[in-house]
């Protein structure tokens, strides 16, 4: 009986699927009709995405989800956070269960082309580093010849590690681990000399140790890990919405628009680009199918890029990441948004 219901449902839905695919609705319209944004996030990564004790998601990636929801609905709370694992994140996106993937995902050639993702930008420039115990007496990654290294399997970091050691003509023994928590445990238990992962992750891990002063993060960054939001290939209008929402947050920091002064600037600013951004003059929103004050709402969701950074992973948080590459281009970083015109 149960089975027949299931099969009946399956048959009926398959028919419906054919009908719906033929129509080819746009993601933006689907999201608007649904009234909620399905945002794929990490199941839990310190500072980037984590639910608190009462179940509210918080973090650097989550803030971008909120900003996109703010831009579309004018209400940053209209987000459904769907935790995705590193193995199912791309399928979740291509199959349409999520509209947007913001899960500290590295933008690579094959993911962009072969996996049919569209990365709309970079919200965090990361790189792979090493952490070792002080008493190992190592001060550079070049001295790690012959070391045992804890490494998460199935990630880009695993491949980077092999490349780096090969390029420097060194050898290593890999201790494969599944999750970051397990990696910490193995490293602390002495199963490996060095632990390698993204530098942001290393900083967060070190900060959580009982004795952070006995561990050091080596200066070498051996890879480029541009982490960015991804959308499905082939829906450029939707990609534009996400890309320019992110750009708006970066531009807001550049122009000194903060969540404290945004309402004031929206009415009184004489800077024409600020006026265009906040929708006081021109109507940029109409060009991407949103309200005129879309950027205003996006910035109000959690502040500008710098505010989000400071609140979630910045130097005042336990993770304590410096801006580094993620500073504005005027400050020697890589954040550089095209003009709002």
């Amino acid at each position, binding site marked *: *009986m*149960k*089975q*027949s*219901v*299931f099969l*009946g*449902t*399956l048959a*009926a*839905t*398959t028919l*419906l*699927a054919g*009908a*719906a*695919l033929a129509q080819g*609705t746009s993601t933006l319209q*689907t999201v608007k*009709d*649904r009234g909620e944004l399905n945002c794929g996030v*990490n*199941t*839990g*990564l*310190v*500072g980037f*995405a*984590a*639910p*608190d*004790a*009462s*179940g509210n998601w918080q*973090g650097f990636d989550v803030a971008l989800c909120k900003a996109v929801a703010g831009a579309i609905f004018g209400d940053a709370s209209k987000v*459904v956070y*769907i*935790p*995705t*694992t590193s*193995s*199912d994140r791309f*399928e*979740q996106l291509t*199959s*349409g*269960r999520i509209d947007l993937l913001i899960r500290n995902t590295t933008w690579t050639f094959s993911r962009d082309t072969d996996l049919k993702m569209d990365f709309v930008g970079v919200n965090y420039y990361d790189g792979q580093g090493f952490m070792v115990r002080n008493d190992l007496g190592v001060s550079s990654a070049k001295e790690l010849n012959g070391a045992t290294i804890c490494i998460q399997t199935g990630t880009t970091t695993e491949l980077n590690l092999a490349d780096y050691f090969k390029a420097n003509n060194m050898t290593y023994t890999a201790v494969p681990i599944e*999750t970051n*928590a397990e990696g*910490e*445990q193995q490293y602390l238990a002495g199963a490996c000399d060095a632990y390698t992962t993204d530098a942001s992750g290393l900083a*967060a*891990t070190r*900060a*959580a*140790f*009982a004795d952070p002063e006995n561990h050091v993060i080596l200066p070498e960054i051996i890879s480029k890990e541009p982490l960015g939001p991804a959308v499905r290939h082939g829906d450029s209008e939707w990609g534009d919405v996400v890309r320019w929402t992110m750009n708006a947050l970066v531009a807001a920091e550049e122009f000194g628009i903060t969540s404290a002064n945004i309402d004031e600037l929206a009415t009184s600013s004489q800077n024409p680009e600020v006026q265009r951004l906040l929708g006081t003059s021109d109507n940029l929103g109409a060009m991407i199918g949103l309200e005129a004050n879309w950027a205003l709402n996006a910035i109000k969701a959690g502040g500008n890029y710098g505010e989000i950074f400071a609140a979630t992973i910045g130097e005042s*948080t*336990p*993770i304590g990441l410096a801006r580094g590459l993620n500073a504005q281009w005027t400050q020697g970083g890589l954040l550089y948004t095209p003009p709002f015109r």
Partner: protein
Amino acid sequence: MNTSTSTFVRTEMLPEQAPPLTESGAVKWVRENLFSSVLNGILTVLGVVIVAYLVIGIAPWLSRSVWNAGSLSECRQIIAERWGEGVTGACWAVIRERWPQYLFGFYPSHLYWRPVLAFVLLCVAVAPVLFDKLPRKMLWFSLVYPAVGFWLLWGGSVWVPVMAVAGFAIGYAAAKFLQPVAGTIIAAIAAVLAPVLWWLFLAGPAADALQSLLPIALESVRSREFGGFILAFTIGFTGIAFSLPLGVMLALGRQSDMFIVNKLSVGFIEFIRGVPLITLLFTASLLLNYFLPPGTDFDIILRVIIMVVLFAAAYIAEVVRGGLAALPRGQYEAADALGLDYWKAQRLIIMPQALKISIPGIVSTFIGLFKDTTLVVFVGLLDPLKGITDAVRASTDWKGIYWEPYIFVGAIFFLFCFGMSRYSMYLESKLKTDHR
């Protein structure tokens, strides 16, 4: 021989002597149970050493437990203050702060009473099934419990589960009224077809209409808000409840002489058993999405439950087949000789014996199923063991915590699995009728 007074027959009893030291009390017990041979002696010493090693390793850590703290670093500070620098201790404060998340996931906190009530009612519904001394009328509640539990957990209009239950009533009514008029076969077909048509086409509109007439609804809770042990229990108990009947049907199907039924059952069982559960879960979560129209929300928990039921049913089918195979041929022949039809023979003679033989296998399948519910973490659901723990660890307060969440979740799983195991032993001894 006047010296015949010398006695060689003892006239008074000697007092009882204590048995030799090696044959009594603790010494005897130790000799017999721990050191009865050289090999046993070595194994005993080895066992004691291992236990002692574990206790020495774990006990100090456990004894330095902290229950009140706001973060892991605060825990460490407290431990350092109380027991000196450099020692480690258990930080149970994480459980104290996050236990609602472990039990309820992201279920809205003002609605916690609903899963709790659903759980209490579950116990009431299960009791008459487990213990035959309870009044049989309670079974009626057990039958409607799935609808009650569904309504309490997910909320929404009361008419949705009511209409779903009405489908069974319609099937029953169709069979009852058509049987005298149109014969057994048509009645049986109608009994299956009528409810299916009802569920597919009429139940939804009927529920909507009734809802607008008489709105009774609970605040609805969506599946993504489920997590932790509610998720494990929902999937586990639904899986157990539905896989047993389905498994029995499959076992009978596999034994059947009807070609199609037999081959379908064999194919289903062998296919499902040949595929890891994770594959089925990925199919449910990802593959199915490609066939569904964009935007359809075919509930992810429902999909997972369907897959878990199918998976467990295949295993149950093989366990029950083992029970059926163990029955002597004479039992089947006796049933035939009594003139019982197939279903009566199964119900009255074959199944009671076959299921009794299969109890240990069935229960271990259930225990396995219950523990396998933690695998849903791979499809992005927040299971208690890893999903919730990862989420908790991802907060800056609790990053770096490792053993405590695992111990807590493990303890709860142990409680339920051990309970199931003890119940199966109780049932076995109660049903023991042979004289082996």
